[in-house]
């Protein structure tokens, strides 16, 4: 067996990056007390619309297409698609106070459906596998840091050889952590998720915080789907490629104890666990069982956390509950 540690770490980081976006977005959402189980659907939408944005830009601009513009368009399209999806979720659960679990599951079905529709429609249009031109592909997947850094033995591979989305994801998670722990708005958002009636009594606009956190969180999650399609899947639409990513992201939120900084290493760990069966095959374990390892790890973490009962490690107290001021 040719085992290459640097290669494994690199693959884990690359595979973890879509999860990092998916999870961080969902952390932001859940911090507001909204449990959005539609991450799977949002990531599908992000993947399809991100690809579509880059694809149509590529066709329209022809040879003069700029890589940076393509990346920005893909980012924006996926983010907006996620925002739109979670806006539906927000309207149903925050304004109409629908059950969050049911609405989230519906969003998953809706989002995967829309994603498939857009993706397949592009495929039919082109008549075969869609893909964007190789020049543009590179601007999504190629390393962004100077060659000198990448050439450092081992560290260069493990730390500096990634595409831009990896660093963007890390920066996003750090910014989110600072936002949640160091700013007034972050404190308010946490208060809304813990006890909306308390936040309300303190004069905080609960509805606005819930909407903004859920919509922006959904947008960030959707970027994860785009990152997967544009880097790992090589800008090719494959209708099963994204399957399960969103659910792992939801599990990862619990694993990370609702802390974005934990998501940094958690996503790498889960990204690694998801591809371990390819890289480090263990002959006597069937790959199907090997693939469920992330879920088993999540279950174990849940048990440990609930045994320890540390208040700080518990989910936001009003997670999943609707808030209505005049209810008694």
């Amino acid at each position, binding site marked *: 067996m040719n085992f290459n540690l640097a290669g494994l770490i690199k693959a884990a980081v690359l595979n973890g990056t879509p999860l990092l976006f998916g999870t961080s977005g969902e952390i932001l959402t859940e911090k507001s007390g909204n449990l959005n189980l539609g991450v799977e659907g949002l990531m599908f939408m992000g993947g399809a619309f991100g690809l579509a944005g880059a694809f149509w830009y590529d066709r329209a601009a022809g040879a003069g297409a700029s890589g940076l513009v393509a990346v920005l368009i893909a980012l924006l399209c996926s983010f907006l698609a996620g925002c739109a999806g979670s806006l539906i979720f927000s309207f149903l659960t925050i304004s109409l106070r629908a059950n969050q679990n049911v609405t989230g599951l519906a969003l998953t079905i809706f989002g995967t459906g829309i994603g498939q529709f857009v993706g397949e429609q592009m495929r039919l249009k082109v008549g075969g596998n869609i893909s964007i031109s190789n020049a543009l592909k590179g601007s999504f997947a190629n390393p962004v840091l100077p060659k000198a850094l990448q050439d450092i033995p081992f560290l260069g591979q493990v730390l500096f050889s990634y595409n831009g989305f990896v660093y963007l994801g890390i920066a996003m998670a750090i910014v989110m952590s600072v936002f949640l722990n160091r700013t007034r708005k972050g404190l*308010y958002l946490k208060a809304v998720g813990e*006890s909306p009636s308390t936040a309300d009594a303190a004069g905080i606009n609960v509805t606005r915080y819930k909407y903004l956190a859920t919509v922006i969180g959904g947008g960030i999650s959707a970027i994860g789907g785009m990152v997967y399609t544009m880097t790992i899947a090589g800008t090719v639409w494959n209708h099963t490629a994204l399957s399960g990513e969103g659910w792992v992201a939801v599990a990862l939120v619990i694993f990370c104890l609702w802390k974005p900084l934990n998501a940094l290493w958690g996503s790498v760990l889960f990204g690694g666990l998801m591809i371990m069966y390819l890289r480090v095959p263990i002959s006597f374990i069937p790959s199907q069982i090997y693939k469920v390892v992330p879920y088993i790890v999540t279950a174990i973490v849940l048990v440990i956390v609930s045994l320890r009962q540390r208040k700080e490690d518990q989910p936001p107290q009003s997670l999943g509950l609707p808030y209505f001021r*005049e209810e008694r």
Partner: protein
Amino acid sequence: MTHAVELKNITKRFGSTVANDKVDLYVDSGVIMSLLGENGSGKTTLMNMLAGIYFPDEGQIFVGGKEVSIRSPRDAYENGIGMIHQHFKLIDVFTAAENVALGINEGKYDLKKVAAGVKEISDKYGFGIDPDKKIYEMSVSEKQTVEIIKVLYRGANILILDEPTAVLTPQETEKLFGILKAMKADGKAIILITHKLNEVMAVSDVVAVLRKGQHIKTVRTEETNPQALTEMMVGRAVSLNIDRMEPKDPKPRLTVAGLTCRDSEGVTKLENVGFIAYSGEILGIAGIAGSGQKELLEAIAGLRPISSGSIIYTPEGKIPEELVGKTPMEIKEAGVALAFVPEDRLGMGLVGGMGMTENMMLRTWNKGRGIFVNRKEPEKVAEQVYEFLEVVTPSIDYPVRKLSGGNVQKVLVGREIASSPSVLMSAYAVRGLDINTSYIIYNLMEGQKSKGVAVIFVGEDLDVLLQLADRILVLCDGKVSGIVDARTTTKEEVGLLMTQVGGGKDAN
């Protein structure tokens, strides 16, 4: 002169129910006003309109002589109104300072500055609160103090406290009253919502009485008395006396010895508890919240594993039997009933979404023939409880969750009594009930006692325990710190026993 706050012609409706009907009310600075009324008389609703939780349908609010519109809690703060709710509005995982910082948007976000401000207020009034302590590590009294600091930090001049003493020990209540008086001296207007007449008399300057959403009268405290206030509240003359009879023919019914219980984490909740409950007697149980009252009742009811000790039950005219080791069902069948009213009332004993009949069925579900349940019997019991206890409900099949607190408790206590137990245990049976309904429940207990039932009554209000019980067992930190004769003891003695085992002298 201008009043600190004045309500004019305030009306609030919820659907077809009128919660407040044309209320006129005012408070001056430097005055403590008690707001008195039965459950559902609209006290909290009225105050919630000042706090910005509800918005009045009609009427005007004046603060310092100026008309204001309070549409949200933020508006309330900006007008210097702060409300301390009955259920604390605090975030458990935040520190005191973080809780205070919530909703304050002025200036730079600086938790250290907030913490310093908290410290300053705490020192000024002698609160002794550590700004960096997490809320979940605090006692109930400390949490309440944080609520008060929160309001003071925002510079509130008008403070509303919704039943602040419901969760406090007598000593903590004294301390709170001291604080209220200090704030009054500071020129603040204070509105106190309460059920407890003795507190009204002790601390307030004026009393406003609400009945069925209407403002009946505002009187000066020194010109009134509890009897007159009760009549204003209820609208008719009521007797505030519990006719406590001498226990007749008391025989040991329940003999508890050396009872020790640990919870799942191995923490000792009850330690070497021993006492005898006699038939025809009310044994009151007093103690600071969480001193083992709940655990004791659960242990007797068989709901909690017992580490060591014995519980001997002696039914009328039968041979004594050991309850330890029996299942809850067997204990219930033997005639030991438990009516536990938890803080949220519905948590233990009733299913909120079900009607009265179905809740009665929870006791008899295993009595049916074959796989079918018997609905006839529980329906009859429900009818009885409905009529005898005057439960206010559209129908006996109406979900109990939607009933008012007092009615929920009537259903719970009524069901236990209907099973004609020989030991009746009740915890916090009057929690949150108004004075009239409370006395109905007390008299029910008294009635059970006269039938020779051994009643074990866990209560929060010491004044009531002193009037109702024959003997009072005081728990402190899971240990029996004393058993006193309720006829001869004093509130101070019991209060002292609650805070230290033995109360500094020998327990009998």
